Structure formats: structure tokens, C-alpha cells
């Protein structure tokens, strides 16, 4: 496969096609913000109701593990940005290298996340299944915090998995020289998506790991 010479049949030009796909991704990200926003709304309400339980709940998470995941994700954003830059310059090989790095960092993140979930599981900190690992009078409220922790991080992890899948496909296409300096829309919009998922984590990290850290 080599790069396209013409835009898709219903578009008048590459410019129009790029504009449409980029705007489409921005619109989709607006949807995503509302998707997470609904849950964060509930999170905020209960945090105001049960401030102490939120502190106790966030202490169940490992600050260091969370910080490590944050660093990994930030690094993946950098390699993603470099991949987009390579696409703009039409350097297919560089695209593949940087995407591979991004995918690898994404997988490391997911592995850390899985390790953390495993810890919650063995310590009986999974509400709805077994939450006997935390015993204190504010048990139900802390369980509520952990519910939000799991829900938000799982939702984020699902987005990460989708992101890794999308980047893999794009890396394969790049390897087959599908992209050129004038036609590399998919790399850019996948980059937008990846950065968005990273930014979501930058909100989740303080909301789920750092609630009581100032005390």
C-alpha cells in the first residue's frame, strides 16, 4: 500500500477531509469529557458530603505507584507528539519508532494498573465483591470512594486499551508507507485522542491518590 493521491470520494479536497476528521475528533472528545464529567460530578458531590472518608479512601492507594503511572503516561505523550511531528515531515520510519515507544509506554501503564488492581484484590478492597480489607466505622463511605476509584480508573483503562489498539493499527499502516506529508490525518487524530486520555489521567491522579496528601 502506498499513500493516497486523492481524498475520499465524497470530499472535495484533502484539506476538507482533514478539517472534517480533525473537527470530528474534537467533537468526539467533547462527548468524552461529558462521559467522564457525569461520574466526576457524583465524585465531587460525595467528596463534599464525606471529606474524611475520601481522605481515608485515597490512603488505600499507593502514592508511588500512582506517581510512576503518571510519569509513564507523560512520557508516552511526548513520544506521541514526536510521532505526529514525524508524520508532518513525512518520515514513515520515525512514525513507526515513536508509535512503538508510545504503545510500549501505554502497555507499561496498563501493567502497573493491573498490578495495582491485583493488590486491591488480595487485600479485599473491591466493593461489590469483597471489601473486608477496610474495617472502620466509615466503611460504607470509604467503599463509595473505592467504587469511584475503580469506576474512573477502569473507564480510563478501557480508553487506554482502545488507544493502544488504534495506535497499533496506525503503526502498521505507517510501516506500509500509508502516510505522507500531505495525507497523515489518522496519525494526528489518534494523537489527539491519546493526549486526551493522558489529560484525563492528570485529573484522576490528584482526585484519587492525593486527596489526603496535604495533611
Amino acid at each position, binding site marked *: 500500500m502506498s499513500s493516497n493521491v486523492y481524498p475520499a470520494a465524497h470530499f472535495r479536497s484533502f484539506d476538507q477531509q482533514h478539517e472534517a476528521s480533525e473537527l470530528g475528533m474534537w467533537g468526539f472528545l467533547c462527548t468524552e469529557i461529558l462521559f467522564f464529567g457525569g461520574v466526576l460530578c457524583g465524585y465531587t458531590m460525595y467528596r463534599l458530603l464525606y471529606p474524611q*472518608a475520601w481522605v481515608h479512601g485515597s490512603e488505600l492507594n499507593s502514592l508511588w505507584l500512582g506517581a510512576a503511572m503518571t510519569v509513564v503516561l507523560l512520557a508516552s505523550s511526548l513520544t506521541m507528539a514526536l510521532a505526529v511531528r514525524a508524520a508532518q515531515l513525512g518520515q514513515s520510519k520515525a512514525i513507526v519508532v515513536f508509535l512503538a515507544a508510545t504503545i510500549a509506554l501505554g502497555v507499561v501503564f496498563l501493567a502497573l494498573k493491573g498490578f495495582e488492581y491485583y493488590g486491591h484484590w488480595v487485600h479485599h478492597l473491591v466493593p461489590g465483591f469483597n471489601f473486608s480489607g477496610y474495617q472502620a466505622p466509615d466503611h460504607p463511605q470509604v467503599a463509595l470512594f473505592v467504587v469511584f476509584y475503580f469506576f474512573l480508573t477502569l473507564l480510563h483503562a478501557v480508553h487506554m486499551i482502545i488507544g493502544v489498539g488504534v495506535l497499533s493499527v496506525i503503526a502498521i499502516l505507517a510501516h506500509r508507507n500509508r502516510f505522507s506529508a500531505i495525507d497523515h490525518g489518522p496519525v494526528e487524530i489518534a494523537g489527539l485522542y491519546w493526549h486526551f486520555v493522558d489529560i484525563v489521567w492528570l485529573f484522576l491522579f490528584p482526585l484519587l491518590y492525593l486527596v489526603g496528601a496535604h495533611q
Partner: protein
Amino acid sequence: MTSGLDLLPQAASANAQIVDQLYLAFVIASVVIVAAIFLLILVFVVRFRRREGNLVARRVKESTLIEIAWSGIPLLILMGAFVWGAKIYFDEAVPPADSTEIYVVGKQWMWKLQHPEGNREINELHVPAGRPVKLVMTSEDVIHSFFIPAFRIKQDVLPGRYTQLWFQASTEGRFPLLCAEFCGTNHSRMHGWVYAMAPAEYQRWLSGGETGETMSEAGQKVFQRLACATCHARDGPPLQGLYRRRVPLSDGSVVLADDAYIRRSIVDPASQIVQGYQPIMPTFSGNATEEEILQLIAYIRSLKNLPPGSLPANTPGGEQSPNDDTGPERKQQ
């Protein structure tokens, strides 16, 4: 209750008449507007129908002024309507201080009511006419809604919290009481009657109660059964005079010890720890029904007139029964 062709339901409270006035004002305004619009449309479609000599439309001058006029004028009228409706809502939300209090527990599919004097009823609510009555309501299961059409009032009844509603029946009589929030299979059969009685007759009805035990007396028994005094008569936070006092909490905030606070302290004690105490109280949410919690609250309220240290110890039967047998919050009467 109503014959098939009535357009307004029975109005049996001052509030009902006030709501009806607003409603009728809205109806009249709507009829005028709808009539004007229908008439204008009719005139336009007849006058400007397509025919020889009117095959091509005429130019009509557009104007910003008319757009501003027909959005601005309705806006002003609506603001008036907003204030009127909001005033009624506010008055409905604030019960007079001297209201008779009655406690309501909704449950699939019945209304359970308790009077402070101890009378308990199901799907029937006896109230004095001409006196304000305040209902404190909660649910044992799903959300219900306490609806008395004759008084034009309605309030959802939620599990896990208290909502309130007040009314003052202006005439004696029997009025339907309905559930207005869908609550399951027999939702439409969760109905009862409100009996508004002359105050003297109401007093007679109260004294004919079967148990002869007031709500606070019943609450005292629950208090003993749950052995609350084990702590609260010793190292735990004292309960005397607690009701409607401001309580400092361990997180630095200060809350008013009202019904909702006491309820939450019983079912969810860890969520609001009194300053200077350890969070060691377990939850009693599984051990007391909503009705019993209301009785406990009535008991705690009755403790406010007692001298400190007179709280009964955890010996069954107690040493002293509270003497405030007219029930809490009736001091003004």
C-alpha cells in the same frame, strides 16, 4: 369525590385557593393567547390563501423592533408569573412554628403515620382542621410521593432522609391521600384518606388511641432495647438538651442537631463525629426500623427538659420516664 365533569378538585385549604387563583390566571392567559393565535392563523390563511390575484407573496418589511417587542413583552409577563409562583412555593416550604407534627413512613404500598401522642394509623391521617400540621416523612424502601390534591400539595418521600410538608385544612371532611411517585406493583392502590376534624374532636380521637404510649415513650423502649445508654449515659456524647443545639464536629464544622442529624447519627454515626469523641459507635441501621428511629428522635427531643445526669442507665425498664408526655415541640400551644 368528584363528578366526571368538575374542572377543579375540591379545595380544602387556604393554600388550595391560592394555587387555584394562580392556576386560573394561567388558564385565562393561555386561553386568550391560544384564541388570539388560532384566530390570527385563521384570518391569515383565509385572507392570504392562494388564488387568482394572490399567486405570488407580497413583500413584508422585517423589523428588529417587532422581534424585540414580541420577545420582551412575554418575558416581562413571565417574570411576573415567576414571582407569583415562587411566592406560593416558599410559603409551602416553611411550616409555621406552632405546627402539629406528625410522622410519616412510606412503604410499598402503604402510608404509616404516627402522632407524637402515640396514635398510629395506616393509610388514614386524622388532623385538626384550622391548625397547621407539619409532616416529617421518610421511606422504608423506594421513593414515594405524599399527595393530597384537596390541599394542592405534594412532596416526595425518600429513603434515607427526611422531607417535610405542611398544610392547614380549612374545612372538616375526608380528602384523598395518594402516592404520586411510581413505586411498584400496587402504586395506584397506595391511597388513603385525610380526615380533617374539629380540634376538640381531634383531641377526643387522640385520647382514644389503643396503646396509651406516646412516641417518646415508645422511643425510650427502643433506646433501652438497643442499649444506647451503655455509652450515652457514660462516656459517649450526652443527649440531654441535644435537640436543636449546635454541635461541633471533629472536622471543625458545626451542625444543627435536627431530625436529620439525629437520624444520620444513628444509621451512619461515622459520618459526623462529635468533637472530642472517638468514632466507635457502630451503625444501627439494621437494628431499628424507620418508625423506631422516629420514636428514638422523639425520645431524644423529650430529653431536653430533663436535668443533666438523669438519663436512665442501661438497666431494663429504666428508672425514670420522661414527663413530657404531650410530645416534643408543642410548647407554643
